[in-house]
C-alpha cells in the first residue's frame, strides 16, 4: 500500500504511472532458507530509491530488484546484516534507510515522541496538583439558611 497511495497521488497529479506487480521474483530466492530470511528482513528496512516510500521487498522496480540481488550476494559472501546495510548506505546514502539512524540530524525525530510523552505527563501531574491545592484552599461553601430549608423540604418530600 506504500505503492497504493503513491498511485493515488500519481493518479491525482498525473505524475507517473506505476504498475503493481510481484516484487521478489522466484529466481531471486536463495536456496539457504536462513540466508533468505535474513535477506527479507534487511530488504524491509531498505527503501526503493525510485519509488514512493516503498521498501525494496515490496517494489517491482528494476532498481529494487538490483538491490535485492545485491543484498543476497553480500549475504552469500558471508557479510553480517550490519555489513550489508553499511555497504548499501555507503553506495546510496542514508536516504536508503527506512529506519533513519540516530544522530544529530535525527535527534528531534527519535527523541521527540518520548520527550513529548514525558512533558505531557508532567503537565498533567502539575494540573492535578494545582487543582487539588485550589480545591483544598477553597472548601465547598456551607449551605445558606434558605438552601438548608430547601434541602429539608426536598428530603421531607421523599
Amino acid at each position, binding site marked *: 500500500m506504500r505503492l497504493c*497511495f503513491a498511485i*493515488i497521488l500519481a493518479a*491525482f497529479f498525473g505524475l507517473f*504511472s506505476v504498475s*503493481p506487480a510481484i516484487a521478489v521474483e522466484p*529466481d531471486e530466492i536463495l536456496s539457504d532458507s536462513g540466508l533468505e530470511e535474513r535477506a527479507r528482513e534487511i530488504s524491509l528496512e531498505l527503501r526503493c530509491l525510485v519509488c514512493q516510500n516503498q521498501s525494496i521487498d515490496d517494489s517491482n522496480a528494476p532498481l529494487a530488484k538490483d538491490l535485492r540481488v545485491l543484498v543476497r550476494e553480500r549475504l552469500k559472501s558471508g557479510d553480517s546484516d550490519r555489513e550489508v546495510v553499511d555497504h548499501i548506505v555507503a553506495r546510496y546514502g542514508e536516504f536508503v*534507510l527506512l*529506519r533513519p539512524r540516530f544522530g544529530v540530524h535525527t535527534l528531534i525525530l527519535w527523541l521527540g515522541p518520548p520527550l513529548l*510523552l514525558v512533558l505531557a505527563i508532567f503537565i498533567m501531574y502539575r494540573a492535578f496538583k494545582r487543582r487539588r491545592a485550589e480545591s483544598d484552599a477553597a472548601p465547598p461553601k456551607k449551605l445558606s439558611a434558605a438552601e438548608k430549608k430547601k434541602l429539608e423540604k426536598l428530603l421531607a418530600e421523599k
Partner: protein
Amino acid sequence: MISETGHFALILALGTAIVQTILPLWGYYRRDHTLMRVAMPSSVAQCMLLLVAFGALTVAYVTSDFSVENVWQNSHSAKPMLYKISGVWGNHEGSMLLWVLILAAFGASVALFGGNLPRDLRTCVLSVQGSVGAAFLLFIVATSNPFLRLDPIPLDGKGLNPILQDPALAFHPPFLYAGYVGFSLAFSFAIAALITGRIDAAWARWVRPWTLAAWMCLTLGVAMGSWWAYYELGWGGWWFWDPVENASFMPWLAGTALLHSASVMEKRDALKVWTLLLAILTFSLSLMGTFLVRSGVLTSVHAFAVDPARGIFILGIMTFFVGGALALFASRAKLLRQGGIFAPISREGSLVLNNLLLTTACAAVFIGTLYPLALEAVTGDKISVGPPYFDATFGPLMIPLLLVLPLGPFLAWKRGDILGALQRLAFAAALALLATLAAAAIFARGPWLATLGIGLGVWLIAGAISEIAFRIKLLRAPAEESWRRLCNLPRSAFGTAIAHAGVGVMVLGIIGTTAWRHEEILAMKPGEKADVAGYTLEFGGVAPGRGPNYTEVIGVFKVTRAGVETVTLHPSKRLYTAPPQPTSEAGILASWGGDLYTVLGDELEGGAFSVRIYFHPLVRLIWIGAIFMFLGGLMSLMDRRLRVGAPKRARKAPAGAAAAE
C-alpha cells in the same frame, strides 16, 4: 450550458460564503439581530448552490462531455457508469468541489436543525464555517476550476487511472472527506465558543454528535482505503505508514481523543480548555492532510516548488486558520471557567490518560511524517522515515492505551475504585489469559509477543462485554431484572461497548496477519501443485479475458482442502485501454480463519508463471473491527440523550444569556 450553470453557481457560492462570514459576525458585535439572522439562509443557499455546481459536474461526467477539460482529463466514454460518477471526485478539482460541498452541507445542517442552539453561538458557528468555505471556494475558483472548457472538443477522454476504478475506492474519498470536513464543525464551535467566551456542557452536547458522525465517516473511509489496498495492490498489505495514509490517520487519532474529552466535558463540565484546543487541532490536522495530499509536497519538496500555486494557496489557508485559531485560543482561553474537580483515579482520569496517549501517538505520527520534509527544507539532507520508525514509536504508545482501555468504563466519575474495577474484570482477564495460553499452544514456535497480542485482543472484547454484563447485573440479579436493565440501558452504553470490542477485534486481525502470515513465491507450470496453510492449489494455466475497458490474462487455481475441492481462484493481470496501464487483481478465498490470497505474475522462461500465494490469518478482522467501531458510533448517535436531551439543556442557555445581557 449545464457546465456554465455549474460554474456560475460555484462563483455565486463563493459570494454567498463571504456574506455568510462577514454579516453575521458584524451583526454579533453590533448586537444587530437582523444581520445575525443572515447566517441561516446564506448557509443553506451556499449549500444549494454547491449542490447545483456538483450536480453540473456530475452531469458532465455522466454524459462524457469532453468539452469540459476536467472530464477530458479524467474520464473516458468506455468507462462503466459507476466509475464515470466516481470520476467526479477522482481528481484534484472535483475532489475539492466535493470537499466544499460537504463543508457547506455541515454548515447548512446547523442552520436547519440548530434551532435550539443559543443564538450567539449559532451565528458565530455559521460565520466561522462560512469563512472556511469562502477560503476554499476562492482556492477552487482561482487555481482549480473544474468547469474550464476546451476548444476544439477532443473526441474521447484520457481515462481514469485504472487503479482507481474499483468499487471500494469509488466510495473511499466521500467518506474520508465527510470525516475530514466534519471536524470543521467542531472547529467552528470551538472558535465560536472563544468569540462568545461561553462554553458549557450544552456546548459539548452539541459538538459531540457532529464529531461522532465525522469520526464514523473517517473510520470507514480509512478502513476502506486500507481494504482496497489489501486486495488491489497485490501483496496483501493493509497499512504502510505512507504519508498520505498518515495524513488521514492523524485527524482520526485526534478526533478519537476529542470524542473522549468531549464526553468528560458533557458529563462533568471538566477539561473545557483542553477540549477546545483538541477541536482546533483536529481540524488543523484535517487541513494539513488536505495540504499534504493536494500540494504535491510529499512527492518531494522540489516537485512542490515547481508548481507551487496550489500548494502555497492551501498553505496560506492553513496558516490563516490554524494560526488565527491558536492565537485566539491563547488570548481568550483564560476567560473560560474551569469546572469539575476529579481524582486521578476516576472516569475522567482514565479519559485524560486516553487523551494523553492518543495525542502523543498522533504527535509521533506527525513528527515521522513531516520530519523528512522539514530536514530537507532546512539542511538539504534527505532521509526516509518508514514503517520501522512508526512501529518503534507509535506501537509502544498503543500498548498501554489498549491495556487500560477496559478499565475506564468501570471507574466511577470523580473518584474511582481501581481494585473494584479489576475485580469486575476478573472474568475478562481470565479469558484473556486462556486465549494467550491457547495461542501459545497452537503456535508453539511463537512469536511470544504475538500470543500476548491475542490475549490483548480477547481482553478488549471480553472487557467490553463485561461492562454491559456488569451494568445489567447479569447473574447477580434475577434474569427478569437483568433483561429489564438491558432494555433500559442507554444506547450510548452499547455504542461504547461495541466500539471498544471493535478495537479488540481489530487487534486480533492485526496480530494474526502480522505474526503468522504465510508466503510462497513460486515459478509454477500448468498442472503443478503447491501446498499453503492446509490448502492445495493446482495451477490450471492461464486464459485470456476482456472487460469493458481492459483485456486480461486470468490464472486458474483449483483449491482443495483435505481432499475436497473448495473453489477455483482467478487472479488476473489486466491491461487497461485508456490510459494503457497494467493492474493486478488478486484471487482471494476468504474465510473466518484467514484469507488465501493468490497473485499471478509474469510469464517466465519455459512456460512457467511467477506466482505468489499468501495465507493471511484473521486478516478480515481488521476491517470487521473498523465496522464495529462505526456501528458503535451509530448506536451512540441514536442515543435518546443526543436527540431529546440536547434541546432541553440548550434551551436553558439562551434564557441565561438573555438575563446576562
